[in-house]
């Protein structure tokens, strides 16, 4: 009996049950919500969120109140960079990927340096970085026309790639496998958990704590950049603050998936389920004609509810 209740208390199981329940709810509200086509579309949108959340996940796992509020800004910036570099030509995809990754790594590096060397709390550092990025977006968009996605990129994101499933979903699955491998089977992954659980003990055992933390923010920046690129492929052309919504939702996806905001506990599989869950919830809210501001309110309330649910027993500030 106790093992059964333990099974149903696992965040991943809870999330999966909720996913099925929400799909059922959506189907009953609006027939066709859970059709194969629709589910594929939901999966594409969830992939975008899931990729951003992968970066958010490692930053949060690393502890010391780790959080990356600048992901939305990086997503927007990356979409614009990608659009302008490729500008509708397939030959520009590879340079665009490289440029986006470089930009994501650069802003992640700045976040990491601020948090480690200047000892700025991650919340403040990445929020400040978000402000910088938003300003930068305004500057860039004056004068330079926004670019267009290359047909190859759009096809990768929206058209079936293999077994009738679009490339981006395959990419997300690959990222899921990569994250599982990294967190469980590499020294780097074990060290992420170590600094997240007890930073001082990790330091005393020879873990390069500062380098690790800088690395985590760079990973977060690069995942956000990949998501920005794919988002351009999804929408065809970039528009201002296209990535804004990812700040809150990436955090919710991570917390939904059972990762502790205090760090050191959790994993990416749950985060994937969390991302899917959020996207389905968003779909339902759209079907019942709740607009963007209403959705944001529901998301914010969801995060607070989750904290109430998972946060019991352990204070957030470790």
């Amino acid at each position: 009996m106790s093992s059964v209740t333990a099974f149903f208390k696992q965040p991943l199981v809870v999330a999966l049950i909720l996913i099925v329940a929400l799909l059922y709810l959506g189907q009953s509200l609006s027939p066709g919500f859970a059709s194969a086509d629709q589910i594929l579309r939901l999966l594409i949108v969830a992939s975008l969120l899931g990729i951003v959340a992968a970066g958010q996940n490692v930053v949060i796992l690393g502890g010391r109140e780790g959080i990356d509020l600048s992901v939305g800004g990086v997503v927007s910036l990356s979409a614009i960079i990608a659009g302008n570099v490729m500008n509708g030509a397939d030959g520009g995809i590879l340079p665009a990927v490289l440029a986006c990754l470089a930009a994501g790594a650069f802003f992640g590096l700045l976040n990491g340096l601020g948090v480690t060397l200047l000892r700025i709390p991650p919340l403040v550092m990445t929020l400040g970085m978000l402000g910088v990025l938003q300003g930068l977006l305004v500057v860039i968009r004056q004068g330079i026309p926004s670019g267009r996605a290359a047909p190859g990129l759009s096809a990768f994101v929206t058209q079936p790639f293999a077994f009738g499933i679009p490339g981006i979903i395959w990419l997300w699955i690959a990222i899921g496998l990569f994250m599982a491998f990294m967190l469980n089977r590499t020294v780097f992954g074990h060290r992420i958990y170590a600094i997240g659980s007890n930073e001082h003990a990790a330091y005393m055992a020879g873990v390069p704590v500062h380098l690790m933390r800088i690395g985590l923010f760079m990973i977060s920046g690069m995942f956000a950049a990949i998501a920005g690129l794919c988002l351009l492929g999804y929408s065809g052309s970039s528009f201002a603050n296209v990535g804004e919504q990812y700040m809150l939702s990436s955090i919710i996806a991570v917390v939904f998936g059972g990762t502790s905001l205090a760090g050191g506990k959790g994993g990416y599989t749950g985060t994937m389920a969390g991302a899917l869950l959020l996207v389905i919830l968003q779909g339902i809210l759209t079907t019942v004609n709740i607009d963007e501001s209403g959705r944001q309110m529901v998301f914010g309330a969801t995060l607070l509810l989750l904290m109430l649910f998972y946060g019991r027993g352990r204070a957030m500030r470790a």
Partner: protein
Amino acid sequence: MSKLRLNGVSKAYGATLALRRGDLEIAAGEVHVLMGSNGSGKSTLCKIIAGSVRPDGGHILINDKPVIISGPQAARVAGIGIFYQELSLASHRSVEENICLSALPVRAGLFIDRQALKARAARYIALFSQVAGEGFHAEALVGNLRADQRQLVEIMKALVSEAPILIFDEPTSALDRAQVDRFFEILRGLKAQGRGIIFISHRMDEITAIGDRVTIIRDGETIETLKLSETDPGTVIRLMVGGASDMPAARSSAPAVVEAQAEAAISVRNLSGKGFRDVSFEVAKGEILGLGGLHGQGQSALLRAIFGAGTVTSGEVAIGGERYDAKSPRDAIRRGCAYVSGDRGRDGVISGRPIIENVTPVHYLRDRLMIARPSSLRDKAIPALEAMHTKFASLFHPINSLSGGNQQKVIIARWLIDRPDVLLLDDPTKGIDLQAKADLFALIRQLAAEGLGILLYSSEDAELLGNANRILVFNGGSVTRELTGDDRTRYNLYQAAYEAA
């Protein structure tokens, strides 16, 4: 007439008796010294008098009238002022504000009377004006002061209470000679006014200089009260040590001379840093060097500094004849250092993670691993854990599922996969059970026999006497005595720890 009398006061924390029986009598116009080793119950006794700990039993009488001290405020009202050894100053406030903090002068019941505050603080600042040193004035921020100056503020804070009974718990630890002399002059003035003063210090010279009577506490019991003019330091130390005073170390398995492996595992030359100064020694391969003395005399600071986790200002460390400056534990580990802390919750345990991940982090670093393959890691971790007789159900259970002693064994096992050359043990048996202690010391002696150089600091004298080939006694941050051969007795250890720094 006695100012303060304690009759059979006791205090237990759970199953631990911190104070079995405290009898104490403070006369008007005397400085009464409390002496006892670490954990003997002095601090508990002081806290009971100051109202921060409620006793379980016994009676307290002030001016021969029974009182109940229900809290710090009640103690203040009853006329008790205390100097705390842990500094309790507000570092962003000025000297004068800190001095008057416990009783700020107010006007109209609401506003601070700045002039009264200044005047009151100035009287006490003036007492030390000759010795306070540069930068010490009424408006200086406490956070910008030196350690000795902060301690002076703490003394002034106790004096400003003008309480008839004053408790000074190690008030002189950071002061220089001139400051101590001035402080003693002031104490003599207070004595002349008929106040009763309780004084705790670990410096025998200070105790004989200022004390009238001494009460010795051992194992939570007040043993005896003596007039200091009618006794000598040797007697006091013998009373503190108790019946086992002449227990020689030789009875244990720690030989005085190590098998001639002349080569040094680690040598330290004139090393100074935060908390210790001018320390020099050499540890031969196969030797266990004990670091003794009272708690916090620089032993831990030295070990942490060698390991790259503290500050070194001058001097040098060489491992295997090669000089190295560890900037971080990472450097030190690469050079073959290992460090085990008694504070495993802070320095050791990666909580919530599996046992195996608590064993492997050092191995990752020393073998420059990238991929963590469970099968090969298991083969490395299990022998290391078995060497420590660690009890565990599965390598993949969280470390928190183990008892304290077994957790510490896991932490030690992490250093056994790749053998270090030097093992730094910083009170490693704190809070672990007897069986785990026995296992640990068996392993330590075995490691020494295999040629490791071992530095052992322990707050338990028996562990030092039973395992160390030599003992360096620390006092005030430097080594004041080296005990070798038959000199390794509990009596000598105490005497060296308590003599003047």
